[in-house]
Each structure stands twice: as structure tokens, then as C-alpha cells.
């Protein structure tokens, strides 16, 4: 057993309102710079949709992540052997139009236009060329099902859905959508790290944060291809690649990452998880059907004396162990088995997890004969013009998981490599909690129904209350449990703190290249 510590985030998707405040907080802090205009280290996607950059999940196009190769795995598109042949031309890169050309407006026209019969207006111009431009793409172009004929309907997660299931997802009376906030997954088997010809990318030992050393990066952009989540970005101004740093300067000082700190829906949880690094290779190359469950098995119980001893011998600080025992991430992911990684089939072993959303129940359509309807109406009255009616009635107070507006297969394609049982179990558990709480607060659900729902999903009333508490009532201190950096380690890391303080800042310390090598 090789116990390592990872700072891990859980997103509770039932709580996400899609406000993008996380994206704005991140942008304002980290990517409001020349060359980084188009970068959104944190972005929020509407599902169904093709996301950002458009169609990033489709690895037939982008060749990101790992693929199984006999007993082992290879990088799909940007492995070191491949990158040597393609080092001066990487064919699998997203281009600026797959992201978007950043734009601003020619505001001076409002003030300097000659007088005329009309008001002036500031027209859009490119932030790259300064020339007038047509805006054709943006960081959330398909937000709230914008352009559904072109985007949502081309979501690659619709694969394996029947034509009628697909069609139902886009009928007004049956549809639903949800939001998927995304940052770097700080993977255990990061494809970006493996792909980098310069060895500039590394995973920090103390917390698992994946970083690109800006001193070492040579801008080959292999990481941009390799990352299946498209979470490394090339800065056209500095000629280097950049990515989410999990706000490590904030974390080290005991502050939540900006995305989490600003989250309006309080959907994010951040905590320590201990895992067994000896298993990385075998889990990453497991059969697709086993990847999720085996990744869960890698995560270790922070109360197990053997784990504690092993962690100690690996140099994991007591404060980290302490945090691991109160970790909200551990509770959601391992103890309660409620959260899942995004696209585990990419085999990077992402260490961010999502509690899948319980969506409203399926609606249906009733046919009705309205042919003579308008004859009866007051001449002024508007009336329902169609020959069908919305019907969302259910037999039970809460419709069953099978009646959810999103086919289970869609959720499974996102969170469990297509395995509907994995997603289904978690949704059933969430529903059991809901039924239990309904019985507690209202009392109009039969005791048997609740007992059965809890037993079915391995919950007790106490566990259900715990889940409810951490989901709905938790304070910031419950949601954010991270050990601050040890001062003595920080000093060691900086070596000559006194010399560099206030001059070069973080990330440019000479010698840190070794850490990536």
C-alpha cells in the first residue's frame, strides 16, 4: 500500500443553478490576461450540449485520454512515441473556432461618432485582431439549450439512446436540462503529464494538484490534445500552456478555491481523500465496466489503523489525516457512494466527483380534439391552439427514477462509462433520502415505502439524515475541510523565502523544474 493524499472536489448537481459565478470568479483572478482571453479554467456547461470547446467529449475528434492496449494503456492521440513524429504538427488540436474568438466592442464610437439622425452603437470587434467581427461562438454558446438543433442534439452522450428517447429529450413537455461545472480533474493518471515532451507538467505530492511549470513548458501543446477534458489551454501570447491550479495559493493559506468560494448554490465540497497509489496502473487499465468500482476501491478509509500507519510512513502530516477523517468528499464519494467521476472511460482517474441530478419526472402528451374550440370562445380570448395537452401526472408523490426525464443511459454515459446500474443506484439513494425527509417533515409517505426505499439502497434513517444535512444545511466549514500548508514545508519548498518574497512570486522559483522532471 502506497498511501497518498489528494484534495478532491465534489459537485452536487441538484444544487447547481447554472449561474456561472464560479467561472467569473476564476476568470477575474486567473485568466484576465493577454493570450488567456479565451481560457475558462472553470466553465459551466448545459447538458445536453456540446460544451466547451465544442464537442470536447468526442475523442474520435480530439483523441484525448487513454485507450486500452492489450493489458496496458496508451495515450490515444498524443503519446510520447506519437508526439515525436507529430512534434511540429499536432493534428488533433482544437482551433480557436472550437473555443471562440474573444470579442469586445468599439466603445469609442459611442462618443466619437459624428452627429447624425441616429444613435451610435458600439459594434463587436475581435480582442485578437481589433477588427470588426461576427460573433459565432462563445464559452457557453449552448447555455440553457441555446441553439439546440446544432448543439444539444449533437451531444455525444446521446449515443446508445434509442431514437424515441432522443426525440423525447427535445420535446418541450418532456425535456429537462442540467448544468455541469467543470475544472481540471487533477487526475491520478493524468494524460497531460504523460504527454508532455518537456516534462513540464507534474502532480504535487502533498495534495495531488496538477500543475504546468511555466519555466519548463515549451508550448508543444501535446497536453491540450492529451487531456480528454480539454482543461489545458495554450496561451498564444506567452507561448506556454496553462491550466486550473485549484487555486493552490489560496488552498495553502486555508482559503477555498475561488470557484468554490463564490458558488451561489453551495454545490461544491472540498476535502482530502487518501488513495492507494500502487493501484493506479491496474485500475487505469481495468476493463471499462470495472473502472468506476475499482477507482472507488482505491480510495482508502482514513479511520483504518493500517491506512493511518502507512500514511504516516509516507510522510502524510497529522493535520492532513485529521482533515481526511472529516472530509465531505470522502463522505459523498466513498462512505455514501453518491458521487461519480466524469467520463471514467477516459481512464485518467479523475479526482473530481459529481452527485448526479435527480431530474423531474417524464411528462407525456395527451391528444385532444380542439377543432371547434375557438368557436366557443369570447372573441377577445386567447386559447390553447394545439391538439395535445401536457401531462406530468404520476401515480406516486415522487415519480420513480425510471420515469426521470433524462434516460438513465444518458447519465451513465456521462458518469459511469455507460453502466446504468452505477448511476441508477445513486439516484435511487437520493430518492430514498427525499422520501425519508418527506416522511419526517410532512408524513404523507407510507412508512413501508420509506423503509423499503432505504433498505433497497443500504441506508438507515440516520445515514439519510446525514446525507440530507450535508446536502442542504451544511455550513461552509462542513463543506470545506482542507489542511492549510505546513509552514515548515512551505519554507522548505521556497528554499530562500526571504530572497524571493515580493519579487518573483509563485510558480517561477528556479529549481522547481526538478519537481516536474
Amino acid at each position, binding site marked *: 500500500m502506497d498511501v497518498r493524499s489528494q484534495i478532491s472536489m465534489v459537485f452536487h448537481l441538484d444544487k447547481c443553478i447554472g449561474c456561472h459565478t464560479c467561472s467569473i470568479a476564476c476568470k477575474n483572478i486567473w485568466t484576465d490576461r493577454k493570450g488567456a482571453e479565451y481560457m475558462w479554467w472553470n466553465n459551466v456547461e448545459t447538458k445536453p450540449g456540446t460544451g466547451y470547446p465544442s464537442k470536447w467529449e468526442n475523442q474520435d475528434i480530439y483523441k484525448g485520454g487513454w485507450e486500452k492496449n492489450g493489458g496496458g494503456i496508451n495515450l490515444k492521440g498524443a503519446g510520447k512515441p506519437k508526439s515525436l513524429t507529430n512534434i511540429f504538427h499536432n493534428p488533433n488540436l482544437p482551433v480557436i473556432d472550437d473555443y471562440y474568438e474573444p470579442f469586445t466592442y468599439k466603445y469609442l464610437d*459611442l462618443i466619437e461618432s459624428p452627429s447624425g439622425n441616429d444613435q451610435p*452603437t458600439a459594434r463587436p470587434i475581435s480582442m485578437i485582431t481589433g477588427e470588426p467581427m461576427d460573433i459565432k461562438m462563445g464559452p457557453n454558446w449552448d447555455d440553457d*439549450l441555446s441553439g439546440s438543433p*446544432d448543439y444539444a442534439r449533437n451531444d455525444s452522450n446521446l449515443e446508445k439512446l434509442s431514437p424515441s428517447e432522443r426525440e423525447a429529450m427535445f420535446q418541450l413537455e418532456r425535456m429537462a436540462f442540467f448544468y455541469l461545472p467543470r475544472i481540471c480533474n487533477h487526475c491520478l493518471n493524468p494524460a497531460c503529464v504523460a504527454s508532455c515532451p518537456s516534462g513540464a507538467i507534474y502532480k504535487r505530492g502533498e495534495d495531488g494538484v496538477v500543475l504546468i511549470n511555466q519555466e519548463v513548458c515549451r508550448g508543444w501543446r501535446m497536453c491540450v490534445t492529451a487531456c480528454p477534458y480539454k482543461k489545458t489551454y495554450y496561451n498564444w501570447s506567452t507561448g506556454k500552456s496553462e491550466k486550473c491550479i485549484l487555486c493552490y495559493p489560496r488552498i495553502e493559506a486555508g482559503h477555498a478555491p475561488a470557484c468554490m468560494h463564490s458558488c451561489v448554490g453551495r454545490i461544491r465540497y472540498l476535502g482530502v481523500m487518501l488513495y492507494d497509489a500502487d493501484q493506479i496502473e491496474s485500475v487505469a487499465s481495468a476493463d471499462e465496466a470495472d473502472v468506476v468500482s475499482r477507482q472507488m476501491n482505491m480510495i482508502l478509509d482514513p479511520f483504518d489503523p493500517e491506512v493511518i500507519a502507512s500514511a504516516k510512513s509516507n510522510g502524510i502530516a497529522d493535520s492532513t489525516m485529521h482533515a481526511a477523517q472529516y472530509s465531505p468528499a470522502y463522505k459523498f464519494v466513498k462512505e455514501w457512494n453518491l458521487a461519480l467521476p466524469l467520463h471514467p472511460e477516459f481512464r485518467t482517474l479523475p479526482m473530481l466527483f459529481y452527485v448526479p441530478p435527480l431530474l423531474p419526472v417524464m411528462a407525456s402528451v395527451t391528444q385532444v380534439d380542439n377543432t371547434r374550440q375557438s368557436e366557443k*370562445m369570447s372573441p377577445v380570448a386567447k386559447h390553447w391552439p394545439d391538439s395535445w*395537452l401536457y401531462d406530468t401526472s404520476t401515480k406516486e408523490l415522487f415519480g420513480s427514477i425510471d420515469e426521470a426525464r433524462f434516460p438513465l443511459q444518458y447519465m451513465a454515459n456521462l458518469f459511469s462509462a455507460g453502466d446504468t446500474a452505477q448511476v441508477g443506484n445513486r439516484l435511487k439513494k437520493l430518492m430514498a433520502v427525499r422520501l425519508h425527509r418527506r416522511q419526517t417533515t410532512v408524513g404523507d409517505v407510507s412508512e413501508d415505502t420509506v423503509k423499503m426505499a432505504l433498505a433497497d439502497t443500504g441506508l438507515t434513517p440516520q445515514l439519510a439524515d446525514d446525507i440530507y444535512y450535508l446536502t442542504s444545511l451544511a455550513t461552509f466549514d462542513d463543506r470545506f475541510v482542507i489542511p492549510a500548508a505546513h509552514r515548515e514545508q512551505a519554507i522548505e519548498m521556497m528554499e530562500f523565502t526571504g530572497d524571493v518574497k515580493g519579487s518573483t512570486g509563485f510558480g517561477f522559483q528556479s529549481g522547481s523544474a526538478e519537481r516536474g522532471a
Partner: protein
Amino acid sequence: MKLENAVDDQPYDPVLTLLGRSNEIALTSFTEFGLDKTVHRGVPVMRVETTDGPVTVTTVYDLTMAQYGVDRGLPGAYPRDYGDKNAAYTPAWQELFTGVASDTVLQFAREWASTAEATGGKCMIIIGAGINHWYHGNLMYRAGAMALMLTGCVGKNGGGLNHYVGQEKLAPMDSWGAIAFGKDWQSAVRLQQTPLWHYINTCQYRYDGQFSRYNTVPDNELTRQHTADEIYKSVRMGWMPFYPQFAQNTLELCREAIDSGATDDDGIKQYVLNKLKSKQLEYSVSDPDAEHNFPRVWYIWRGNAIMGSMKGHEYCLKHYLGTHSNAIAEDSEDHTTEVKWHDVAPVGKMDLIVDLNFRMDSSALYSDIVLPAASWYEKADLNSTDLHSFIHPLSAAIPPVWESKTDWNIFRDLAKATSEAAVKYFPEPQKDVVASPIAHDSAGEISQPVIKDWYRGECEAVPGRTMHGLTVVDRDYTKLYDKFISLGDRLRTTGLGAHGNHYQCEDAYDEMVASNHFAVERQNGNVYPSLKEDEWAANAVLHLSTLTNGVLNVRAYRNAERRTGLDLVDLGAGSEDVRIRFADLQAQPRRYNTSPLWSGVMTGGRAYAPYTYNVEKLIPWRTLTGRQHFYLDHEMYLAYGENLPTYKPSPKPEAYGDLKQTLKDGDARILNCLTPHGKWHIHSTYMENHRMLTLSRGCEPVWMSEVDAADLGIQDNDWVEVYNDHGVYCARATVSARIPKGVCIVYHVPERTVGIPKSQVRGGKRAGGHNSFTRIHLKPNFLAGGYGQFTYHFNYWGPIAPNRDTHVIVKRMDKVVF
């Protein structure tokens, strides 16, 4: 309220229904306006002897059951069952209008009611201003309120109607109201209800016609009217305000009164009254298109009236500003009868527009003078809402940028410049006469049980009772600045209060003068608390409000106890020591006191829930009877068929009149255009922020359904024009499966400042925004006054300017020119 007889204090047990108590049944007529059908249904009744002879009575509950078609075994045309499509209010009937299947409605209704029963009323409706934007918005509110009332959810934590409108106002209204409106120095103030003001002054009334053409009303004397005539009536009856007031300048009018022998304020009032009665003094609203009645100078503060809030933007451009306009509507054939009709409408009424603004928004673009204002992080200010019960500070993190100043300092400087100019132009104090509508929470609110128009000789003209009030005010313009920077001692005698509450604040005022913690102004030997700096004004608000000063709070509860005979002071217990200062808020936002000012009881850490005060403490509701009113027996409500909660259909586009000219030469696909709140802006604020535009496809797009887009040959991100008789908006189309067929959405408020191209359908003139295709239609029964809850209160009561019933044509643009 307490169930006690007002005459002898004996308790009584009210009867919910006469069913089983009386064998007498009255066949009563009920009208359903969607099907335009009147039916007769039996209602149990009793005869009661009164001084005017026997009267037939029933309960509101019995009437409501009959209105809703609940078959209780009574005779008459009750619906067969839930599946009866031809009878109003059955689940099957509503399908005709909503497209929602009966089963869904039944399941929802049952779950709603059983949840309310099991939880003791924890069913809640959270409602936003969107409802207010439908022509029949009041009826939608009443439907919700009825569902809450029937299931016992009103005034419960976790239940009730939570109305997220007007949340921008500051909760300690008792103190800020006095400071903001200068009531620390004088009594009367001119506050205007804006929808009716713009409706009249932008000439939008000229395009309207009789309201019965689109409002389904029974045909009678009160409904065969033009809304503008009803507004004129509402002004002279004291229901609604309207300024400018009279055709004659009010300072001149007072001088004339004095010259004619008036020796005191009463004499001036009498002179003005006589002149009104003899019709020698004309109301401005009676002839708004006459030059002497134009509003001339317009200060815009804290708003974006030109494009943002004012419906009928293009009419504003034409009739207020006299500039380019994309309206092509023509005058209605229905002319006003009492309001004088001019054959040619005036254009460009305004002489000067001054905009106090921290953004270069559409209003600023059209203003003559823009006064740059400090933004939130550059000034001291207070922020709170009544529903969330916390009070927050705004603090200056940085000084105001460039030449901008805080709002407070801008008004202070304006006051100073005015006082300096007054030394030359108004060196002497002036008498002014102010006409104000009958106020809510005043004795006048029960003064008009029936509509009797003094102007037509139907009753005696009595100011404040049968007509608006008249108040003489002393104006010393040379002292404007002095008064602005100091808190007037009028408060020492009048005290403070709002919403029918009152408390003396003499000691709190004197403390401000004596204490070292407040700055003072010394003027002519007097010492006043100083309001010179924004932070000092904020501290005055905090020091004098029941919400933030516990001693005043307990005092206000004591007064409320005296007025109501109820035990209330326990609600203030524990708040005596609460004394919140601005610096406290800067350290951390504070929760304010449970106070009689608002209707939520928050003691013991409870969340604010409206009307818990009324329900738990038996405080009478601020209505005509002190009860919740589900039957409205005001003459206008009876005449309009809105005495009971009623369904009225959304008017058809042909009736509403948005497309008369546009569709003159043919037919087209008509879409209902909705303008809800945007995802990333608060009205226009933040709309043109670079980040938010980046997340919003670079513009405020026109959302359309996949079906309509396909039929109209429109692809996602195509440029389109949205237009009707009133104007045009050009933007990109966002085609989405989440938009229903027949509807398009333009979130409010797009700014003209970013990326608005020129319109093809208007011959290359620049397009406007979401209010370019709206025109104001007011519902006249919202004008009613002098009748309990139907009594004017600034920012609370008056007609709304709906825009959700608007219809447009959407067309793809072939050529985009900026």
C-alpha cells in the same frame, strides 16, 4: 383580527357557510369571461333586517364555491364533474386555455392541499414581478392567494405568498421615508405613480382606444370608457397623483389667492378649491397635450427610464424627446371624451433631461446632461430588503473615479446651486399648494364607499374626502441647501412611522444633537443633526428606525398595542439594546428587529414570513374591514366582473392592437413576445458588462422555438428583426427546444449602446430595445381610491404597465448594417 363585536366587545364565531343553516337559495349569475358565458347557480342565503329594510346575505365562501362551480347539491348550472369542459373552473375547462391536462392539475391540487393539511400550511408561492406584467396580473395574484387561503397557508413560516417585487427599497422605511422626502422640514410631497404618468405624457393614450376592446368586461357605464378619462377622474377624485398639477403654476396660484384676500393657508386652500369647483382652474391631466401642461424638466436617478423601465420607448422618443422614432402606429379612432383631444399630437415635450448615473446607459445617451455618479464601492449607503431581514452597508473601498460624485453629494451640490440662484430669483419665501391623493393608512382611506364625482356635481367637493387633499407649503428656496444638510426638527413633534404605525422620536433626535457620536449643523442659532455626508445620513436612518433602534421599536409596539388593544410589546422584547450604527454594519451585516413596520414575526431567530404578524397576533389587515378580502365590492370591481377571483383570458393580438399597421397588407406568423429578467443582468445593469456579454452570445438575443424558427426560415445565430406598430428590435436569434411554440423571448434590458444594427423594416433606422415593441395598456380598476386597500400609497398601489400580452412579427435580416 380578534373575533369580537366592535360595539359590545362580545366574542363571535363567524359562519363559513349558510349551507345547512338556511333553506333559502338564491339563483345567482356568474360570468366566465373566457367562454363569454353566464350561468345561474344556487347560493344559500338569509334575510337580514337592516335600517334600510331587509337585505339578502350570504357568505363569501358560499359565493366562492358557486363561482368555482363546486357542486354542493345546490340547484342551478353546476358542472357535471371535473371533466365538464363547458363549465368554468373545472380541470377539463382549464385545458382550453393552458394546454395542461386535467390529471396533472388534479394531482397537483391534491398534493398541494394534502401537504398544506399535513404541515399546517407550509405551501408557498414564490412570485416575481412577471405576474405584474400581464394585463390581468391582479387576477393571477388572486388565484394564488385564494389557493393559499383555502388551504390555510397565509401567514405561515414555510408557506404563503412570497412576493419578490419592490425588494430594492430599504427596509427601515419609517426613517428613510421621512429623510428622503424632506418630511423632516415640511409635510406635503409630490410623488408620482409612473405608469400612468408616462401613459398620459408620452401620448401613448392616443393610440389606445376604449379598454373594453381588449379587457373582457361586462358592458356598462363604467366600462364604456377610455383609460385616459378614467385617469383624469382618478386624479380629481383623489385616487391617483398627477403632476404637473394644474394648468396654472402653483406658486402663482398662491400669490393670486393672497392678492384676492386670502390671509392664511386655509384661505389659500379655499381659494384654490373654489377655483377648481368653478372650473376656472384646469387640471393638467385634463389637457395633457396643451403646451402649458407639458412636463419640461426631467431628472433621471436610479433608473434607466429611457429604454429600461418605461414601456413604449419609441413613444417616449417621439413625444418626450422629439427625436427619431420607429413607431408607425396611428391615433386610435376612439378619442377621449373628458381629456381634451388635440388633432395633432405634440412632439418633443421635454426641454431638459438630466441623468444621474454610474453607467453610460441608454438613458444617459439621450440626456442633455449626465452627472457621473459613484458606484457601490465608492460611497456609503445602505441596502436591505424586507423579505430577507438583514441590513447591509455599501462602503467606499476606493474614491469615486474621475469626476464622479456620490449620489448624496450630487443632490447636495444641486441643492446648493439652487439656493444660491434663489437669492436672485426667489429671495422671499413662497407659498405653494400641493394636491395629493388620499393616502393609505389615513382617515381618508374609508372616505369613498361609493363613486361620487364632485366634478360632475354628484357630491360636495371636500378635500381629502371626496377629492384629493390640498396642502399649503412654505418654500424658502434660499434655504434648500441648509435643509438638505440638516435633519429638520419637525420630526420632534410629528414623530415617525409607516404602514399605519407611529412613534415619537424626540429623545432620539435630541440625542443626535447632544451626543458626540453625531455631527451637527448650526444654523441661525439652532443646532440640528447633520446630514451633510452620506455616512451621516445613513446613521440618521439607522438611529431613527424601529428596525435598528430597539427603544423606538418597543415604543412603536406600545403605540400599536394602544391602537389595537392587543398584546404586542413582547415582540420587541430583547430589542431594547439594539442600536445599529453604520460602522457595525461595515463589520458585519446585521439582522434587523422584528418591528410593527413589517408583517413578519422574526423573534427567536425565525425567518421572515409575511403576515405572520397578522395571523399570530391578530393584527387587522390593512384593508377596508381589517380582514383578508376575497370578495371586492368596490363599484369598479363589480362593474368589471372582478368582484370574485375570476379568470380573464389574455387578449388576442387583434384586440390588443400591436399590429394594426404592421399587418395592414397581409398576414404573418404572430408571436407573443415576453421580456423576462435576464440570466446575467439586473434589468440593464451588467447587461453590457464585457463578461456577461461574453456569456450571452455578445448581445441580448431573441429566443425562439425550433418550430417557429424552422417555419420562418431562421437558423440559430441569424440576425432577426422583432417588430410591430410600436417599434423594432434587431438581434441574433437563439433557437432553442426550451422555448414554446408561438412565443419569443427578449430578456430585459438590452442597451442601445452595444451592437444594435439598423433595421431593414424601418428603412435603415437604428433599431431600439425590448421596450421598442411595447405600448402601455393600463387596467383602470387599479386606479380606485379612498376605499381601504384601494387607496394610494407611493410605490404600492396604482396601475401596472403590463407588457407580456405584446405580440410581434419576427423576420430574418438579409443585410446587417451598424
